[in-house]
């Protein structure tokens, strides 16, 4: 059973702002789903290896050679805040420092 504090903690980890209604609904819905999912914890899985991937491939590396890539203008075309300054081009973001006013 998830309580309000847990929902808010997970929402913060997920970078998801939830309003009060959503917090309440999420607590009830996730608890309901988890109640069902919990049943797998009753299985005897001692010594069973986990599967993260079904393809029988370990690592597949290409030759470490330069390959063509998008020019900056193409990569920036869909950006909400493309930056084109004398210092170069890039993705604009707000300040990561919460208290710093713009």
């Amino acid at each position: 059973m998830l309580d309000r504090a847990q929902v808010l903690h997970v929402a913060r980890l997920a970078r998801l702002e939830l309003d009060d209604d959503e917090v309440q609904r999420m607590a009830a819905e996730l608890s309901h789903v988890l109640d069902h999912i919990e049943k797998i914890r009753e299985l005897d899985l001692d010594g069973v290896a986990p599967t993260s991937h079904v393809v029988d491939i370990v690592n597949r590396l290409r030759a470490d050679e330069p390959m063509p890539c998008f020019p900056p203008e193409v990569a920036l075309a869909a950006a909400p805040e493309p930056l084109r300054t004398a210092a170069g081009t890039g993705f604009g973001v707000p300040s990561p420092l919460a208290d710093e006013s713009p």
Partner: protein
Amino acid sequence: MTELIDLTAAQAARGVQTGEIGAAELFEAYRRRAAGEELNAFLWVADSPAAGGSPADRPLGGVPLAVKDLFCTEGVPSQAGSRILEGYRPPYTATVVAKLTAAGAPLLGKTNQDEFAMGSSNENSGYGAVLNPWDRGRVPGGSSGGSAAAVAAGLAPWAIGTDTGGSIRQPAALCGIVGLKPTYGACSRYGMIAFASSLDQAGPLTRDVTDAALLFRHMVGHDPCDSTSVEFPGQVALPVAEDLRGIRLGVPEELTGDAGGVQSGVRESFEATLNLAEGLGASVEPCRLPHAPHALSAYYLIAPAEASANLARYDGVRYGLRVDGDADLITMYSRTRARGFGPEVKRRIMLGTYALSSGYYDAYYGTAQKVRTKISEDFRVAFEQFDFIATPTSPWTAFELGSKTDDPLAMYFNDFCTVPMSLAGIPAISIPSGLSEGLPVGFHLAGPAFSESRLLDVAYALERAIGFDGRVART
């Protein structure tokens, strides 16, 4: 024009190749139907086929293709059914789309879907629900609901979608068409907007099994841009089987008993199809998949966990929506995601983040990964005795719009019969097996990894014996 629409994609391709049909005329016939449709199946329709090459000389003969929104298509809206990607036009094209275009199937349009492929009814689309052409008060299934509805209604000759836990097979079943989920790794995932990377696979949604084989043949192969893709062993064969002599079908009691809540009409159609299979010379015996009932639980931990990581990229920085860009960085992230994602996507991100969070990782995600191992082992054992496993595709026929939206867990049970194969990475196909109260029922067959050619062959023999008629949905 009606004549063109009545042809299967393979027949239309042959018509173009022999000069009986003009490729431009074929494209225009479908373009007009797609542009004027009333099911909300398309989110974007092309004005004309992209230039290049003579369709008559290519294996797919200029037969236009509907493509699920989440496949990146250069310069064309690719939004994965989400408002957070509204208007996004990617700078490159997904490998499978590029391969099919090169083989002679021009892009007809982009089809509606559940947001980021999360859903079983298409009601989670940021662009509105899709209506089922058999009954417009009902859902087409999901998440590839637009692709399935478009093919069933004759708005497109054929389509591609993606399947993570049933998202090709279940809508194919609910719309009365054929849907193939290939072996994991058979088709490149490059350019598919990711949901759960260890499960996502592209596949065909078509009017019949021959069309599925023809389209799938040109989708497979290793792609240097997807390191989990592998070379398909040999060429995909076009189906020819006339009987099923020597074929051993296993029917798992865990997926066909009462646990999944299979409707009586679905059960009747399933059993009638098994009788047809026996009549064609197949043996039908019960088999065991002891861990299959736990597949749904494992899936709803693994898929959301992978989704919570994949969807971290929607942060208002490189593409898509940005909200409150004047606030600090974390607030901008959180508000962009709050506004851009719909309720089901938020639910899965929360579930996945919780399952991966400190203190819960082993109990949830780690346990689910172990269950995944046991499910693969169950199939390996079953395939020592049986060639293919048969179940209904979905426990239900198409349900009424809005009837399951209030209970996420009930909605998840749509995937009861399809997720075990997804977790094991094995191929499975849904073919229409008949009608129950006027609505299509899907018959689901699964085989060992890379058994697609044989699987399609068996499905083809059954298809001919069933003689399903989907024309009524194409009016």
